[in-house]
C-alpha cells in the first residue's frame, strides 16, 4: 500500500523519520508553511523558511525517495504581528509560483482577531490570483465557532468551495464542513485530538468522499506514521484496499492536483538521474542510500 501525508512539517523531523516513513509506504508529503513554536521577529526569517520549503527540504526528502511539496502562507498566529505580516505578504506572490508549491496555507484563525481575519481574507485572494487551492487551519480553542467563521470567509471570498480543504476537523466540526463543497482534513495525533479509531468511525459514518487524513507531525509530540497507522486501523475495521488507497492516497493527491503542479502520475519512483547516481553525501553521512 502506498500513502501520501498531505500535512506534515518535515523541517522539524529527523532523517530517521524519513526512513521510517519511506519504509511504511509514504511516497509523498505536503509541508504547509506554519509557525515554528516561537514567533518570528523578522520578515527575512520567513523568507529563509520559505526557501527551505522549496529548496533544502525538498532535496532532503528526495534522498529517501519521498516526493516533497509545500504550501505557502502566513499562519494565523503570526498574522497578529501586522507589520511583519504585511512585509511577508509582499513576498508571497513570487513564492506562489514556485514549482513545489501546491496550495496557499495554512491560513485561518487562531485567536480569531481582526488581524487574523484581515490576512486570512487577503490570502484567499492570493490563492485565487495564483489559481492555487487553499488549506485552512481550524483553531484549537473555540473550534466550532472558528470553523463556522472560516466557512463564512470561504463563502465571502467567492472561491470555488471544491478548491478548499478545512483541516484538523473532529466529531463536532466535520458535520459543519459536510454541508459545504470543501474537502475535509483530519489530523491524527498521539494522546490528543483525533485518534485512528475515531477517524475510522467518522469514515464509517460520513463516507470517504473528499475525506483526507494527515499526521500534522511537527516539532511537538506527534507521529509521522499516523497515515499508515490509520490505514491499518481501516483494514482492521473491514475497509477494502481500494477504499484505503482512495482516502489515504488518491483523495489528498487529487485535492492538491488542482494546483496543476502535482498529479498521481508525478508520484512514480524518484528518477535516479545522473546527478543522483552517486549518493554518498552529507545527509546520508556515508550510509547506504535508501534510494537505489
Amino acid at each position, binding site marked *: 500500500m502506498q500513502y501520501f501525508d498531505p500535512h506534515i512539517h518535515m523541517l522539524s523531523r529527523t532523517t530517521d523519520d524519513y526512513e521510517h516513513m519511506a519504509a511504511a509506504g509514504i511516497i509523498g508529503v505536503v509541508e504547509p508553511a506554519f509557525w515554528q513554536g516561537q514567533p518570528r521577529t523578522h520578515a527575512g526569517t520567513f523568507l529563509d523558511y520559505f526557501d527551505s520549503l522549496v529548496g533544502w527540504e525538498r532535496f532532503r526528502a528526495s534522498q529517501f525517495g519521498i516526493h516533497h511539496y509545500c504550501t505557502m502562507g502566513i499562519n494565523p498566529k503570526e498574522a497578529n504581528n501586522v507589520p511583519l505580516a504585511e512585509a511577508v505578504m509582499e513576498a508571497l506572490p513570487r513564492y506562489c509560483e514556485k514549482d513545489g508549491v501546491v496550495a496557499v496555507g495554512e491560513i485561518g484563525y487562531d485567536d480569531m482577531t481582526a488581524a487574523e481575519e484581515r490576512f486570512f481574507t487577503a490570502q484567499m485572494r492570493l490563492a485565487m490570483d495564483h489559481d492555487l487551492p487553499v488549506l485552512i487551519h481550524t483553531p484549537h480553542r473555540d473550534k466550532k465557532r472558528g470553523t463556522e467563521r472560516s466557512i463564512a470567509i470561504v463563502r465571502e471570498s467567492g472561491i470555488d468551495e471544491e478548491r478548499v480543504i478545512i483541516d484538523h476537523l473532529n466529531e463536532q466540526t466535520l458535520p459543519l464542513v459536510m454541508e459545504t463543497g470543501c474537502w475535509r482534513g483530519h489530523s491524527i495525533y498521539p494522546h490528543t485530538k483525533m485518534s485512528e479509531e475515531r477517524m475510522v468511525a467518522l469514515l464509517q459514518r460520513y463516507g470517504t468522499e473528499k475525506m483526507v487524513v494527515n499526521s500534522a507531525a511537527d516539532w511537538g509530540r506527534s507521529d509521522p506514521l499516523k497515515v499508515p497507522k490509520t490505514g491499518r486501523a481501516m483494514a482492521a475495521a473491514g475497509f477494502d484496499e481500494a477504499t484505503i488507497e482512495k482516502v489515504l492516497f488518491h483523495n489528498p493527491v487529487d485535492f492538491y492536483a488542482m494546483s496543476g503542479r502535482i498529479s498521481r502520475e508525478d508520484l512514480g519512483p524518484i528518477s535516479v538521474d545522473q546527478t543522483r547516481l552517486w549518493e554518498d*553525501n552529507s545527509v546520508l553521512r556515508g550510509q547506504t542510500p535508501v534510494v537505489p
Partner: protein
Amino acid sequence: MSEDHRGALDAYIRSCSDGRGRQWLEDAWREATAPDIAHERLATLCAMAARRLGRTPCPGAATALATPHGAVHLGPWSPGDAGRALLVLAAPAPARPERCRALYATGDEGERISLVRALALVVADAGLRDLALEAGRTNNLALFAALVGHNPYPAAVYDDHEFNQLVLKALFMGLPITAVVGLPARANAELSRMCEDYVDERRAAGREVPADIWLALVPRMSPRGRAQVMAALAAADPAQRRHAATAMVAAGAADPGLREAVEDMLAREDDETVRAAVPRPWHPPHP
C-alpha cells in the same frame, strides 16, 4: 557572443516545446527585455519557466555552445533551463551579472540549478565568480552537480585553492569527477596532497576510496601518492583498477615506471571492461 547563444537557446526550446510553450516564451522574452521590468515580475517568470517550457532534456537536440570559458553542452539542459538563461540574456550585457545574482537569490532549487548551468553563457569574464563560489557552498547534491559537472565556469574563474576544494567536495559527495571540466589541466601539487590525505583518512577508517580520485591525485602526486595508486592497481573493485590505470597512463610520459606497472597489471587483468577502458597510447591498436 550573446546573439549566437540567444538564437541557439531559442532553437533548443522550440525543438521540443508545444505551441503554448513557445507563446509563453515569446511573451516572457518581451517582458524580460523591457528595461523597467520589476524584479518580482522577473522572478515570477523564472519560477514559471520549467512548468511552461518543460523540465526534462529534449532528446536528440543536444548542442554545444562555445564560450570564452569553454564549451557548454546542452545535453543535460531542460527547455526550462534554457528559458531561464534567456531571461538573464534578455538584459544588456553589463546588467546580466546583477540580474543573474538577483534571480539566484530568490530562486528555488530548480531555478538555481538552471542559473548555475548558464554561468558561462551569461558572462564573458569572471564577473559571476562570487555567485559560482556561493553555489559551491551548497550541500544540495543536485545543485552542486550542476556547478561541478560539465560546467566550464568554475575551472575558468576559480583560483587553485577554490578549484581544489571543489574537486574534493565532489569526491566527498560521491559525484563523478570525470565530469569536472578542467581536470587534469588544473591539477596541482596541493590537490594531489589533499587527495593523498583523503586516501589515508578513508583507509584508516576502513572505508572505500572514491574510485575516480586517482584522476585528481596522480598528475602531481608525491612518493606517498605513488605508493597509494600502485596499491590501487590491485584493488578488488574493477572501477578502482580502471581509474588508477587510466590516471597512471596519462602521467606515464614523465614516469616510465607507471607505464610498466600498468602493463604488468593489464597482463594479469581478467576484467574485459577494465582492459578495454585503459588507453595505451604506446601500443598499436588491436586489430
